[in-house]
């Protein structure tokens, strides 16, 4: 299975992809995770790719080969759509972070991104409001775990396995609030 996670520096993408990778490893699968994060802290696009299965060779997922595209930001969902295979699932966080090119007036913003998302991804689109759900869970900084929870419903792994991976990576004092955020994301996407 091939999963691409995209967004903007500072959104917690790399932690999410690491927990996904650890979950796959706990499930006994071969797994590879590749990421580009040279200047991630400076507001650029971030991409992390995770592949798992019986045997994985390339760490890179090429265009048209992602089973799931997880976008932490709406413009990035549109930007990275070519990664998604025909019939693949798009999980998009309902947040828009204007790039500097827009806020400084060099380039126009995407007009009506929500309708573009619907047009682009159709039935394969699931959206989630991670900011609201993470605040409800107790800490807005756990928005990435809300997205992880939503993503978990699209993977072959049990919630328990995800929890185990989270416990192996997240400091004990922050684990509870992250688990709550994860469950909130899981519930939100499972609800019809």
């Amino acid at each position, binding site marked *: 299975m091939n999963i691409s996670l995209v967004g*903007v*520096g500072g959104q917690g993408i790399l932690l999410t992809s*690491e927990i996904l*990778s*650890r979950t796959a*490893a706990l499930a006994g699968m*071969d*797994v*590879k*995770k*590749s*990421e*580009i*994060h*040279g*200047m991630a*802290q*400076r*507001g*650029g*696009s971030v991409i992390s790719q995770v592949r798992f299965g019986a045997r*994985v*060779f*390339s*760490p*890179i997922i*090429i*265009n*048209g*080969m992602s089973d799931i595209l997880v976008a932490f930001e709406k*413009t*990035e969902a*549109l*930007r*990275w*759509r*070519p990664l*998604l*295979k*025909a019939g693949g699932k798009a999980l998009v966080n309902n947040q828009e972070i*204007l*790039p*500097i*090119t*827009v*806020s*400084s*007036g*060099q*380039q*126009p*913003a*995407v007009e009506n991104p929500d309708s*573009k998302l619907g047009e*682009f991804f159709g039935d394969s689109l699931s959206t989630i409001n991670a900011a609201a759900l993470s605040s409800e869970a107790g800490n807005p900084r756990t928005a990435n775990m809300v997205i992880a929870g939503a993503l978990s419903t699209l993977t072959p792994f049990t919630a328990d396995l995800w929890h185990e991976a989270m416990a192996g990576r997240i400091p004990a004092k922050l684990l509870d609030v992250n688990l709550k955020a994860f469950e909130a994301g899981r519930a939100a996407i499972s609800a019809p």
Partner: protein
Amino acid sequence: MEHKVLLSANEAVAQAAYHAGCTVAAAYPGTPSTEVMENIAKLKDAIRCEWSVNEKVAAEVAIGASLAGARTLVAMKHVGLNVAMDPIMTFTFVGAVGGMVVIVADDPGMHSSQNEQDSRVLAKFARVPVFEPSDSQEAYDMTHAAFDLSEQFEVPVFIRLTTRTSHASTLVNIDPDAPRKEVVSKGYTKDIIRNVAVPAYARPMRARVEKRTEALRNFAANSEFNRVEKGDNHLGFVTAGISYQYVKEVFPEFSVLKLGLSNPLPVETIRNFAATVDRLVVVEELDPLLEEQIRAAGIAVVDVKTPLRMMELNPMRITALRQELLGDATPPPVQSTLDGLPNRPPVLCAGCSHRGVFYILAKLKATVAGDIGCYTLGAFAPLSAMDTTICMGASIGSALGMEKAGMDGRIAAVIGDSTFLHSGITGLLNVAYNRGTITTVILDNSITAMTGHQKNPGSGTTITGAETVTIDIAAICRAVGIKRVCEVDAYNLAELERVLKEELDAPEASVVIAKGPCVIATKANVGATPYVVDPNKCTACGLCFKLGCPAILRGEAVGKRFKSAIDPAACIGCDQCRQVCKFNAISPRS
């Protein structure tokens, strides 16, 4: 107990260095190599490690440690190897005593680099063996093997990583609690003829190097890291490093000769493999180093037309190769992206102390020779305040060259503190000595920011957090002969403008040290009151947008212009926009 853990190749190298009994390690940070030393530092009691001031010094520290009998490792990115090549080119003559491993991480595709180059070429040039891991398990195993090989043949050994091994995590069978290998230091033996590279002693060394290369070639021919994976023999692939993974992905059914120890090239192994396949294809990332040697040995190689020489390889490019060779490959259908999407380039952080300097330099219409660091982002719109960037330290020498060429107007070199200490000091000395009049602006945030906030001699602590001297940059500038040296608060734009104008127009060389913290490393002003734009006072003049601050957003439209607004979540109250505004429209939120 052995179990599988997910490690990047950088982390795996650090683990292996520990388990293999390495006791001295040195590096200068550089993407994608940085995490090698960061992870070694976590084992600080076991391995004496350091951030050296540059890669040349790091290599020299490793050389000294090797001559003293210790197992030692040095790590750098590809352009860092250029800096380190001088000592390495002669140490390859002298030869290692304690095992010396050189980790060099190439960046095909230039994700975070100013150029693209294949370090294997320099390894061949230096007559040193090269391991090319294709995943983290191999990075771990090859690091162990490299220490042994280095001692057996008395040669520094390269491990060539690339972005897709350094920054990819794969499963490694490892026992993190396994005891460290007990490597007894060989100790130091005074041996002038062996260790002093002067012409009389270097000539016999030269002959030994060539003999050693042939012995290493025989070793490579029998190495477990060079193995044939038999398959359909209509095609046979010779491949190394990450390219192996792409070949296995796209041509799973064909024979492969995987070269893990690729230099010196085991030519006879390849000749034997070639004899078992109908067509031999070489797949390697960047330069055709293997292919040229294979052809030179008279072995027939398919003349591939698919362009594979520049930039990163990936399964898509190898699929194009399959289409060329077999005509049976169809790339997956690809859905389009949205036309006209706004780009999302990296930017100087909200509140970055570099921003005001570039704003003022642009205002003063200075020609700016730039350097390598976060501040290279000052080249991009809307600041557009950097004219050149070449390599670490090049700003100062090239600014002087502009002056010597008779260029008109104000000329500045802009360089960060870590880059100045890395290789700017000699350039500045040269300006003073050769009577230049340029102004060198040192952006001093007391940390190596871009690679992830590593300590440097201006930080006051070492890689392990131990207290140490804090280098006085102003004193260095005076000591190399610059008379006009001043320090300015990087956030005080009026003062910056006054000082920069005065120094740029002065008829002698000067240094302006613009001091301000790295806001993300120090978490400076976290929790500070964010600023707010009063829409009644804002005239939509657009001046604050020229700062290029990501916290300044477009507000209400006024004709074709926009008033500004400030994102309270991003603003750290650095005050630069308030100082720029001519209408007093910006103030701290009350």
